[in-house]
């Protein structure tokens, strides 16, 4: 045992210097940390909350392919429900159902999933610190050279060759590093969600999406099952144009559907901002990279961010390791991440953002019209940024929608 007085004001195992410091232990940060640690570099991850994974700000859906990319099977303890399809409801109530016949995705328990990602990163050698907030960056000759952290009332300087911001929508450090990550209101959806128990779903293996400007302007209401009688019930709406709060829309809709919610109880309340646009051309500075929700890398149509965030974390890790090996962490060297990300994900997300810009201008009768013209595979393709010319061709069938078709070009 160490002799002398233990200083409880200092985070346990904190060192003065790391190869890489990561801000935020969400999926993007922990995934990035793991891959960097696996290459033998020292990594510290600072999480301002007392518990990694909580409170959740997420509908918790993720594709099986994304889990497999991270080396998981879908049978881990963090999986609450396997999903084999979905129901989509047009504003006029018309129902569309897609069934894949096998599990395509999962609804996870973020409080467990985020911890798994952190456990695996820690096992690889990354050091995690909770209740430790990054409050500023350090600079050396203008270049980012570390961070200032606050633990309780104490502040510490921690040096790093590269700092990664995975700090989420509320992040301020990327701005301090010179990257304007401010979200335009038009590019953020207001999210609100209940985790509910004892609700009645016709099939707990399906996701449910409800469209309509009356119930969810520029967005949708979702039911993501977490078991036979448990689900995340949430709403995302555009921050511009809505006349009521997200909570008001959701509460009203729940009240109007006693056949689903008549006997249901609320187990948890969640809120959150969903960055559905405003992709950044340049996500790096000298010694600095921003990833995940902080960099707005979220699918602009369905608002899912775990696949995008973890993928960006992996790409950033690859580039950072190369840069560390070559001893060059300049803006120029790290910019390889921009190139990689834009090629593999950005171009697609940009197209999906254009689709979002079209959909947000559609009235309910337009959505009903599209529902008649499209089949469900089209909807899936569009959300993946594919085959948008088909949508443009259908839009021009309605004279007042011709203008919107030009957005897709």
């Amino acid at each position, binding site marked *: 045992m160490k002799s002398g007085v233990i200083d409880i004001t200092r985070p346990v195992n904190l060192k003065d210097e790391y190869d890489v410091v990561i801000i935020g232990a969400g999926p993007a940060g922990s995934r990035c940390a793991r891959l960097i640690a696996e290459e033998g570099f020292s990594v510290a991850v600072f999480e301002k909350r007392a518990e990694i994974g909580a409170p959740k700000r997420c509908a918790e859906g993720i594709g099986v392919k994304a889990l497999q990319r991270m080396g998981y099977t879908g049978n881990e303890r963090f999986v609450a429900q396997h999903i084999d399809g979905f129901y989509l409801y047009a504003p006029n109530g018309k129902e569309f159902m897609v069934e894949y016949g096998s599990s395509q995705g999962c609804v996870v328990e973020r409080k467990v999933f985020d911890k798994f990602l952190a456990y695996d990163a820690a096992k690889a050698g990354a050091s995690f610190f909770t209740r430790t907030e990054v409050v500023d960056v350090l600079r050396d000759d203008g270049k980012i050279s570390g961070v200032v952290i606050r633990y309780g009332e104490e502040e510490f300087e921690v040096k790093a060759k590269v700092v990664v911001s995975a700090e989420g929508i509320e992040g301020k450090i990327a701005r301090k590093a010179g990257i304007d990550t401010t979200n335009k209101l038009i590019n953020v959806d207001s*999210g609100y969600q209940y985790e509910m128990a004892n609700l009645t779903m016709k099939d707990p293996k399906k996701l449910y999406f409800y469209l309509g400007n009356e119930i969810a302007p520029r967005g949708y209401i979702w039911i993501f099952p977490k078991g036979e009688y448990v689900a995340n019930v949430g709403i995302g709406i555009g921050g511009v144009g809505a006349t009521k*709060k997200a*909570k008001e829309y959701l509460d009203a809709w729940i009240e109007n559907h006693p056949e689903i919610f008549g006997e249901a109880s609320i187990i948890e309340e969640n809120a959150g901002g969903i960055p559905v646009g405003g992709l950044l051309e340049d996500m790096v500075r000298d010694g600095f990279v921003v990833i995940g929700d902080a960099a707005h890398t979220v699918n602009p149509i369905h608002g899912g961010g775990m696949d995008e965030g973890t993928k960006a974390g992996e790409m950033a890790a690859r580039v950072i390791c190369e840069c560390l090996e070559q001893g060059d962490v300049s803006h120029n060297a790290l910019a390889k991440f921009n190139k990689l990300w834009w090629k593999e994900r950005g171009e697609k997300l940009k197209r999906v953002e254009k689709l979002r810009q079209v959909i947000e201008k559609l009235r309910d009768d337009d959505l009903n019209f599209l529902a008649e013209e499209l089949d469900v595979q089209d909807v899936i393709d569009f959300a993946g940024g594919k085959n948008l010319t088909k949508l443009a061709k259908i839009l021009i069938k309605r004279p007042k929608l011709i203008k919107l078709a030009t957005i897709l070009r």
Partner: protein
Amino acid sequence: MMVAKNIPSVCLSCGGCVGVCPQDAISLKDMKIVIDKEKCNNCGACVRFCPVGAMKLDEERGD
């Protein structure tokens, strides 16, 4: 002068308002929303964003 004000009893500390504030006037400190009255220019972005109605524009009381 009007400034943004947070209602802690309603707020879920999701931090979305921090992200949409064009003045960089809002922070999430110790999981509580803190507003820099000097920076706030009364634009209302946070009020329009807030999913639960925890932000409002309020007459600033003279200190």
